[in-house]
């Protein structure tokens, strides 16, 4: 590691604190370690705006965030503390639902209704795309429900991994189907997360 690195880190922390005091920061982000690999997590003034599998944000999601909240999207672990803690507890099997507020405001009202219906599917249970479409007010719209869930900006916290096809097949998942299986097994109490997380090849 470069000798300059800790100095830059401290300078950045002070910069972020000052930008916050001046009201310039709107969204803080951090990269969390999870048993499914790194997660890019962003929290805005009204709650969690994005969780993305990987160390960097999805550019389309980022465009949505800056469209809603301006360019003040800054690395800031502190504003992510709460959701990071809840994610840790979830992966350790000590949390069955998330209390941290989520911000779905930039989405269309149909997407919001689909995700709200998804959020009500209890821990460890499964529902179908058709079921959430019905709960969102349009039973015929299961394909659109699938699309809305595929674009779920806050996976894990909004548990789209609990939604499967009517024939029982898994459907899709942003983090990959292996991740979806892991989450479902975790919630059924069938899989303890090994120390250090699941091996990447099998995620």
């Amino acid at each position, binding site marked *: 590691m470069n000798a300059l690195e800790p100095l830059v880190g401290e*300078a950045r922390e002070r910069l972020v604190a000052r930008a916050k005091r001046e009201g310039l920061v709107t969204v803080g982000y951090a990269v969390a370690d999870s048993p499914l690999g790194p997660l890019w997590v962003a929290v805005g003034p009204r709650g969690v705006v994005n969780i993305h599998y990987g160390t960097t944000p999805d550019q389309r999601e980022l465009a949505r965030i800056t469209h809603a909240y301006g360019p*003040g999207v800054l690395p800031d672990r502190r504003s992510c503390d709460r959701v990071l803690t809840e994610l840790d507890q979830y992966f350790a099997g000590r949390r069955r639902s998330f209390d941290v507020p989520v911000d779905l405001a930039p989405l269309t009202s149909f997407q919001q209704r689909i995700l709200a219906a998804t959020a009500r599917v209890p821990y460890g249970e499964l529902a179908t795309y058709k079921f959430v479409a019905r709960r969102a007010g349009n039973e015929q719209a299961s394909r659109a429900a699938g699309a809305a869930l595929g674009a779920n900006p806050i996976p894990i916290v909004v548990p789209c991994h609990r939604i499967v096809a009517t024939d029982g097949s898994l459907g899709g998942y942003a983090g990959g189907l292996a991740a979806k299986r892991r989450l479902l097994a975790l919630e059924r109490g069938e899989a303890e997360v090994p120390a250090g997380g699941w091996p990447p090849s099998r995620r």
Partner: protein
Amino acid sequence: MTFGELLERHEREIFAYVLRLTGNRAEADDLFQETFLAAFRAWPPPRAGNERAWLYKIATNKAIDRVRQTRRVVPLGDLRLAAPERDGVTLSDLATAVRALPTGQRAAFVLRKVEGRPYAEIADTLGCSEEAARSRVAEAMKKLKEAMR
């Protein structure tokens, strides 16, 4: 682009640059913050793809502003660098002499001789002609040689 991306992409080199300009960590830290906050307030960057040059320009101007405000320029004649009882000059003598340069010359010197930037880029950063950038570097070199004598 978000401010966070700009920060993550350029924070290391801008910090290294302001550290060389100021020669001390506390001032570098202040200058670093002033630079990025000014960039933030002036958002968006004037030309996409040219954010780096934009940040260097802001940092240089902020460094010059600070010197103007605090008027802490040490006239080179006041320096007693090469004490007669010493064998030679040391790196810290050189650092002191670099710090004593007027900010414009110091920035030109650092950009050219430490960071190895082309003159066109230095001119752009300092808001002067290439010729003026060359003469600032030359003037800085001359003063440093005098100070090291």
